[in-house]
């Protein structure tokens, strides 16, 4: 049954090369400067308001969180956690990406060829089920139509469509950059995309080099090695979302805060 089932549902279709794009973020390198957030907003035409200080209403695709070990001076330590969309793969061939499985409009899907979770703004009708389903609080809702300061429309990226009021948006791993890279590859009559041809804006903007992006399956890509480095973990791994964003830290309290347990402690806690 399963072979036919795969066939019938075209689980392995497409004649492009298969990728599994993901990220490894080194928390020991991140200084919390927020350059990734700024780069992301500029790259993806993310709207903002005059007063963007209410973080419940403001839109970010990449957001830097701050945690502390809670100890008094001089033992205080801070860790900043940049958080894009995790592009959850789920487990098994049905994937069960949390947000994708609840969307009644098929406004978001899991691309079998790239591992990128899409968001189609013109298809979304704003029910916000996906926001409730996402365990990482990645998704944001547009409460207003975007209003750009006079003249700023000219600086918007033509490769990313702007979103209207009433729809949900989220990080796309700068999918338009993949489209651009593919376009160039096709014009040169080849199908593979090289590591340096497709990088996200946040990766390139990070002055500390904390973010690495690439194909998790390709042994020649940096992320392939980094994701297996000691102290590598994923957020809320035990939920089984199978995220494609990995974090690395050598600090025990960071791992603990991230619900990652080491050795005996960890028995049966983390998801396979």
């Amino acid at each position, binding site marked *: 049954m399963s072979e036919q089932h795969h066939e019938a549902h075209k689980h392995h*279709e497409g*004649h*492009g090369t298969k990728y599994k794009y993901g990220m490894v973020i080194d928390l020991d390198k991140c200084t919390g400067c927020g350059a990734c957030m700024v780069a992301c907003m500029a790259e993806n035409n993310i709207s903002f308001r005059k007063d963007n200080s209410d973080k419940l209403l403001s839109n970010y695709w990449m957001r830097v969180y701050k945690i502390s070990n809670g100890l008094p001076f001089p033992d205080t330590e801070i860790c900043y956690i940049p958080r894009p969309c995790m592009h959850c793969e789920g487990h098994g061939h049905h994937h069960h990406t949390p947000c994708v499985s609840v969307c009644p409009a098929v406004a978001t899907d899991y*691309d079998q060829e790239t591992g990128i979770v*899409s968001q189609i703004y013109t298809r979304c009708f704003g029910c916000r089920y996906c926001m409730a389903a996402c365990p990482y609080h990645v998704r944001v809702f547009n409460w207003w139509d975007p209003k750009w300061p006079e003249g700023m429309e000219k600086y918007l990226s033509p490769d*990313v*469509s702007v979103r209207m009021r009433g729809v949900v948006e989220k990080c796309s791993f700068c999918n338009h950059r993949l489209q651009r890279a593919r376009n160039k590859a*096709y014009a*040169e*009559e080849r199908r593979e995309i090289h590591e340096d041809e497709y990088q996200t804006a946040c990766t390139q903007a990070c002055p500390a080099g904390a973010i690495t992006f690439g194909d998790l399956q390709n042994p020649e890509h940096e992320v392939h090695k980094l994701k297996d480095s000691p102290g590598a973990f994923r957020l809320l791994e035990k939920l089984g979302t199978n995220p494609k964003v990995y974090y690395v830290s050598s600090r025990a309290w960071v791992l603990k805060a991230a619900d990652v347990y080491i050795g005996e402690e960890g028995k049966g806690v983390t998801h396979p």
Partner: protein
Amino acid sequence: MPLAGFSAGLVVCLFVGWLVFPQILYSEKTQPIDFSHKLHVDEVGECDGCHYFREDGSFSGIPRLASCVECHEEAVGEHPEEAKLVAEYVKPGKEIPWLVYARQPDCVYFSHAAHVKMAELDCVICHGPIGDSDHTRPYQYNLITGYSRDIWGWNIAGMSKNAWDYSQTDESGEVHIDSPARMKMDDCAICHEEKGTNDGCFVCHK
């Protein structure tokens, strides 16, 4: 009697829906220059004389004025449209505000490279036999959405009129297409499905 009344009502509705409403819904503009593709194909050769790929893989769908200037720095003939081109655009160095029949909504991403280089589709498959045209046809656009009529298609009922249904190959191997293509998502999807290409949303959306 009620049947006659119903029929009369139906006729009126169909008349309004199919003939009057489209007139109101679509407005018409003429292109800034009446361009002859036929003449230029004869002079320049294939489509890619003006519609070529740039190094980064993007496509010169609407050539910039610079391409025109290569030949038309001064008028090369006596045609009034050429005189207009030289006087109004070439001399002042102003780009020609062409109206793009095939312009897609903002949420759509289209790669000419994928379709022309990889899938080896002929231009006519989607654009019709535009290379044989002597004049630019009027540009019709939807007054509500602002989109070109070529996107929705010219059949007001929205019936599927895919370009590839109409293509005919004659003895000499030449492909002929009778009507301009429809360019809705369905039309893309049908072909992607047939060819077994990736049908993920982010392939064609941005």
